[in-house]
Every structure is written in C-alpha cells, then in structure tokens.
C-alpha cells in the first residue's frame, strides 16, 4: 500500500476505458445531455397533478410522443397514490430559474485513471435525478465534485448558478448531502445528531429545537430521537441522515447510494421518505445508486454512467422505449437491460477496487 495508490481509492475506474467500442454510447449521451429538463414548463406539472407520471420532466428534444407516453406508463411510482399528491409542491421554482446542477465537460483524473471523462449533465430544479452505474463508474467522484469535496480540475460545475470551484460556501449552503457510508455519529442520540447539523448550518437558537423536531418528524424518528444512534437499525440511520440533511432546508438533496446494504423493506421506507419530503418541499434530489429497479421506480430522469462517462440519459420510460424500438421485439425491457445495452460487453466484475469493496462491505455490515 503505497501513498500513490491512495488518491485513486474511490475512483477505481479502469485503465482500458473505451476499448469496448462504447464510443457510440458516449456520443449519444452527450447529445441528450444538452436537452435536459430545463425547458420544462411548471404549469403542466401542477395541472396534471393527479398523474404521477406527468411529474417526469421530459427533455425538449427527446420528447417524442411515443416516448412521453411510455414515460407515463413506465415511471409510475408505487409509493404514492395520486390522491395523496399535493396540488402544488411548495417552493416549486419559477420557470426560468437556474438548473439545480449543471456539469459541463467535467473530467477528473486520479493518477493515470480517468475516473470521470467529459461528463455533461443537467439536473432541472425540482426533479429526482438518478446517476446510475456499477461500482467504479465514477458516480461518487462526480458527486464529490458537485459537493465541493473535490476540486473541479477541468470543466465547470454549477449548483443553482453558483460555481462549485469558486463559490464553495454558497454551494454548500444549498446542499443536503448524505454520503455512502453510515455517517451518523453512534455516540450521540438521534436528536443530537440532527442538532449538530442545525448548528453548523447556522440555524438560530430560537428556531433550532423546532426545526430539529420537524426534521425528525419528517423521517418518522420522533419516538427514537433520544436514543443513541448506535442502537438504530440501518434503515433508521439512513432516515436520521436524511433528517440531518433536511434540517438546513437545502434546495438540493444529494444522496450517494442511500439504500446500499439495506433490506428491501428498509429500502422502500427510505425511498418513501425521500419521496414524501421531496413532494412536500419541492427540493431537487440527486441520487446515485446501482439498483436499477429503484431508479426506475423513483427517478424522474436517469443518467447511466459507465467507466467515467455518461452512456445514456433520459427518463426511465424513454430509455426503455428506445431500447424496445431498437430491439424490435415485444418483450418489455427493464432499465437493467438498457444499461447492459449501453455499457456494451464491459460489465465484468473488474469494477470496484479493494478499498471500495471493503468500504461497501463495511457499510453493509454496519447496517446489517
């Protein structure tokens, strides 16, 4: 273990990127990336509030009628029945407000490894955007550049119009970040964990207790709020972390593998809380995951990332419809099929180096 190996720890992309003839996929992705959800009229969303699928913003150039239809059928959410959807999510940004996140030509190199390779990405305000890919695809590196944890060596990243490289403090004030590891402090109670984040986000003393209370209530942790976090189950810790992120009223919630290592019931619960909070506050959610089924179910739009590059981008419905057309058969493809298709043959198990696997296992053990 030399020092030189360290920095690329969570990058672990691959040395041989591009040998699999994936160039086509990459080009395709870049084309789509331009037409994000920015032109999305907010009126349409509120009016058709009864239809869950209609919340899916459709890319201006990609929204052919068939694709849009497919979206409606494909991207229904089981978590919420139409009746429960509020007519107008609060704080829905006005049309013309800046995109939540814009990545232009973002590249990141660890040593000789191109962890992130010219990524173009646009996350519209108010949407749930999924960044998908296997271990070592570069998702975490992209997230870390957006959260100002890593510098932006080439390209540009803006969060609600603020440059992540130059206005780090302004960007951080807009973010609620939940890292991949279980990052709640086990030696503190749930309430103390949330209060710490209220403090470091400058919540005033007279508001603090009430805010913490609401954040805990939003994730259903009021009853266990005064127990030490180390006694929580994995799903509860994730919800606690969600409360920690929510207490500062972020405009962008960034979740790095929020359901990793959780059992299916806890996964659903975590997602339902994310979804409910999103609907109540109208905040933008950017999530990375390698569970394609979750992305299909909960994300408005997804980007499929493989070996540092975006291989496809669109609503889950669009991507599936697109693959169905190209395959020209009647079987209903899943998002995983789409992923296999765009990633080409390079989906061996070479992704994820020792440290990332170890860290994932450790997280899984802790949530056990």
């Amino acid at each position: 273990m030399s020092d030189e190996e360290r920095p690329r720890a969570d990058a672990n992309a691959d040395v041989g990127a591009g040998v699999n003839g994936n160039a086509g996929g990459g080009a395709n992705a870049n084309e789509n990336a331009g037409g994000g959800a920015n032109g999305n009229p907010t009126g349409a969303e509120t009016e058709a509030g009864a239809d869950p699928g209609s919340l899916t913003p459709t890319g201006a150039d990609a929204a052919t009628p068939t694709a849009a239809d497919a979206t409606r059928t494909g991207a229904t959410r089981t978590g919420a029945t139409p009746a429960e959807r509020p007519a107008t999510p609060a704080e829905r940004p006005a049309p013309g407000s800046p995109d939540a996140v814009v990545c232009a030509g973002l590249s990141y190199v660890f040593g000789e490894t191109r962890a992130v390779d010219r990524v173009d990405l646009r996350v519209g305000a108010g949407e749930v955007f999924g960044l998908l890919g296997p271990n070592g695809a570069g998702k975490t590196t992209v997230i870390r550049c957006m959260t100002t944890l890593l510098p932006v060596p080439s390209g540009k990243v803006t969060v609600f119009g603020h440059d992540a490289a130059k206005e780090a403090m302004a960007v951080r004030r807009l973010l609620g970040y939940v890292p991949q590891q279980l990052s709640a402090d086990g030696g503190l109670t749930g309430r103390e964990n949330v209060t710490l984040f209220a403090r470091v986000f400058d919540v005033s003393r007279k508001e603090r207790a009430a805010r913490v209370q609401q954040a805990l209530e939003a994730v259903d942790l009021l009853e266990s709020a005064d127990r030490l976090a180390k006694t929580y189950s994995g799903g509860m810790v994730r919800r606690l972390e969600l409360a920690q992120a929510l207490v500062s009223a972020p405009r962008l919630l960034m979740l790095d593998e929020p359901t990793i290592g959780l059992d299916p019931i806890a996964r659903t619960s975590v997602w339902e809380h994310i979804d409910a909070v999103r609907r109540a506050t109208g905040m933008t959610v950017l999530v990375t995951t390698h569970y394609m089924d979750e992305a299909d179910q909960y994300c408005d739009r997804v980007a499929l990332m493989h070996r540092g590059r975006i291989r496809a981008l669109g609503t889950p419905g669009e991507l599936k419809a697109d693959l169905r057309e190209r395959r020209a058969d009647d079987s209903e493809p899943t998002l995983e099929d789409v992923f296999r298709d765009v990633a080409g043959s390079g989906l061996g198990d070479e992704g994820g180096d020792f440290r990332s696997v170890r860290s994932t296992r450790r997280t899984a053990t802790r949530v056990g």
Partner: protein
Amino acid sequence: MSEAPAAPRPGSADATTARPVDQLDLLLTPPTPRSGWRVPAARAWAMCLVELQKLRHDRTELYTRAVQPALWLLIFGETFTRIHAIPTPGVPYLDYLAPGIIAQSAMFIAIFYGIMIIWERDAGVLTKLLVTPTPRAALITGKAFAAGVKSVIQAVVVVVLAAILGVSLTWNPLKLLGVVVAVILGSAFFSCLSMSIAGIVLTRDRLMGIGQAITMPLFFASNALYPVAVMPGWLQVLSRINPLSYEVDALRGLLLGTHAHLLLDFGVLLVAALAGITAASSLLGRLAR
C-alpha cells in the same frame, strides 16, 4: 393517518397533506448565515458540545484515561519523592510532578485525536462536515477546541487525584482559569499536530504507530518529569522547542506558585496552536479525497 383535512387551507403554498410529512414549514426556509468571526466561534462551540454530549453518554473513557496519570503520580511520583533523586527546589517532587502529569495526560488525549479524525473520515462523518458551510480552518479550530475540552476534563481528574495525594495546589479561580486556557491551547497544538500527521499518512494504523513514536519523546524531552537544568545540553535544546515544556511551566507557575515565565509560556502556546491550526487545515483537503 392518510386522512386529509376536510378543507385544504386555500392558497397556502406550504400546506401539505402528504403522508407522512405533516409539518415542514420550518424546513422550507434556509437559515440566515452567520458571518465573520462568528462562524469559527459557532463551529468550535458546536464541536465542543458534541464532545461533551458523547462524554455524558459514555464515561468509560474518562475512567480508563485516569488510570495512567494515577499510576504516574502514585508509583513514579511517590517513589521519586522518597529517594530524592531529582532536585526540585522548594517543592516536594510529587508537587513538582503533578502539573507535568496534567500536561502529559492532556497531550496523550490530543495526540490520539488525529485517529478520531481518520475514523470520522472512514465513517463519512468528516465528509459530511466538509460539505457544510464550515471553512476548513473553522472545522479544525472546532476539533482543536473539542480536544481541548476533553483534555480539560482529564486535567480536572488529575488535579483531583493530586489533591487527594496531598499536593498543595492553588484554588485561586483566576489561576485555575489560566490552567484551563493553558491546557486548551496545549491540546489545540497537539491535536493539530496529530491531525496534520493524519492528513499526511491517511491511515489509522500508520497514525497509531507515529502517535506512539512521538508521545514518549515529547514527554521525556520536556520539563514534565525533571527540571531543564539537569538535562544534557542537547536535550535542553529539544526541551526549549517543545511546546509541552511551556505548558508545564505555565501550569507549575499557576498551580504551585513557582517561578514561571507566564507571558512567554502563553505566547508560545498561542503561536503553536495557531501554527498547528494552519498546518492541519491546509492538510485537511487530503482527508477529503
């Protein structure tokens, strides 16, 4: 549970009937940012509070950490008081030793604080703190003060132990306040030293090794156990550049009333703490990757 209010409040944007979220109004407005010097002060307070809360929940560390200083005072101190091997003008050796042991046990806590920052990094706690509106220097200052708080509690334990063993210490509140400040500044320096090393070596195992390797030399190359005058020349030089010596000197002057260079001591400790904070904050970025 899913029953919505019969008449939805008209026109209120934040009225939400979404299950399970009932009341979220406060979570819709971002807090007003603090600015200027208030930021590091607030962060330091927040981190200190975390240390105190943790100690309240689990006091084991407080007890186990008291064992070593107790042994130093009881065995080493009592023995060397009897054999008069070390010349300590005017005061019994045990009295002379007590401030040294306070400084030493505070230093041990601070040196191993760097391990905690590596643990926090592996657990994602540090990552999350780095994404809050906390400048790196403020984060390190907070951690340094948190280490100081822990050390002060440790110091109280040693002072009580020393008092039980019959060491005649001052109870002048102003002087005790000075002791608190000296211990906090000293711990801030040593915790920053170990956080800087953490930023260089990046793994817990290596830091453990280095921590073990430097604590004893720092301790022995200081005036904690014996006066500088009895040291060989080269050790005197090491003792002069060792901030622990200044901490011990200040503690002795305040607690025992012996002759001390308080102005110089506090000056050196302050400069050392500031230098440590600067070094550790500039290396913190390495832990963020």
